[in-house]
């Protein structure tokens, strides 16, 4: 039969072998953690490098797809408000025209008669009247009146957006830190 000393010595060896295994595993875990701690910048960039661009028509869909995105940007170019957000390797883009309205009118006694209202597209009517883009972002309105020679006046309504307001609105809509929203453009 096996005596007590033999059993104890065998158990001792087993324990020591297990302890060495644990030490090896600890070393491997430390090396892995070290590698991962050095990786984030490169890894993030790699993981978030867009492979495709998606033009999203509806703001609701854009907001759902890009909620919690790593980085986003906004800009106004050629009277177009453009938002880009990078999520899941896809650069999502939403675009919407900023309205631009001209009203031609003439004065008749104590009233004015509107001859013509000009807008660049019918989809811009709600935005122009509400002072808010279809996505929901508030836009500021400035008006200027130009006197024409034939007694007709031209009232031009110029819509614009404030960068900081847009940034905070986007941060709220996309559930992002405003610091990660760039006033400019991110490109694929």
């Amino acid at each position, binding site marked *: 039969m096996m005596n007590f000393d*033999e059993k104890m010595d065998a158990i001792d060896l087993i324990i020591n072998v297990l302890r060495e295994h644990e030490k090896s595993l600890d070393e491997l875990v430390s090396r892995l953690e070290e590698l991962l701690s050095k990786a984030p910048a490169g890894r993030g960039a790699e993981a978030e490098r867009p492979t495709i661009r998606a033009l999203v028509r509806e703001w609701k869909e854009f907001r759902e797809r890009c909620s919690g995105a790593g980085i986003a940007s906004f800009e106004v170019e050629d009277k177009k408000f453009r938002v880009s957000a990078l999520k899941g390797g896809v650069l999502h883009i939403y675009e919407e025209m900023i309205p631009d309205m001209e009203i031609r009118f003439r004065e008749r006694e104590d009233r004015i008669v509107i001859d013509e209202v000009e807008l660049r597209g019918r989809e811009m009517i709600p935005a122009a009247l509400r002072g808010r883009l279809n996505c929901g972002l508030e836009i500021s309105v400035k008006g200027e009146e130009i006197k024409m020679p034939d007694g007709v006046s031209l009232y031009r309504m110029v819509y614009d957006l404030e960068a900081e307001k847009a940034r905070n609105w986007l941060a709220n809509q996309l559930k992002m830190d405003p610091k990660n929203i760039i006033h400019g453009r991110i490109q694929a």
Partner: protein
Amino acid sequence: MTMARRRSKLEIYLDILMLIRSGVNKPTRIMYGANLSWKPLQQILKSLVEQELIREVDARDRRDRRTTTYYVITRKGENVINYFSRARELIRMDGMVNSLILHE
């Protein structure tokens, strides 16, 4: 071609202990006998010495006065070999009994 099964650390330790007990006591001989490379063997020998399963002996060669290291098994090392040899024997016997019962 058949692939040899990867030995567990415990099996490697026991192989080395048995080699030393059988008289294979010089590091290079143990390395060949246990089919290990130099670095892992050195780590295992160090561990076995720390666990007092083997003892390291430095002997001076009479002819060229060089110091050679060899290893001897300790009482604790003997106990471990005996325990696992008997355990293996019990498992083998149990397997034989089981196969006899299945063939009845």
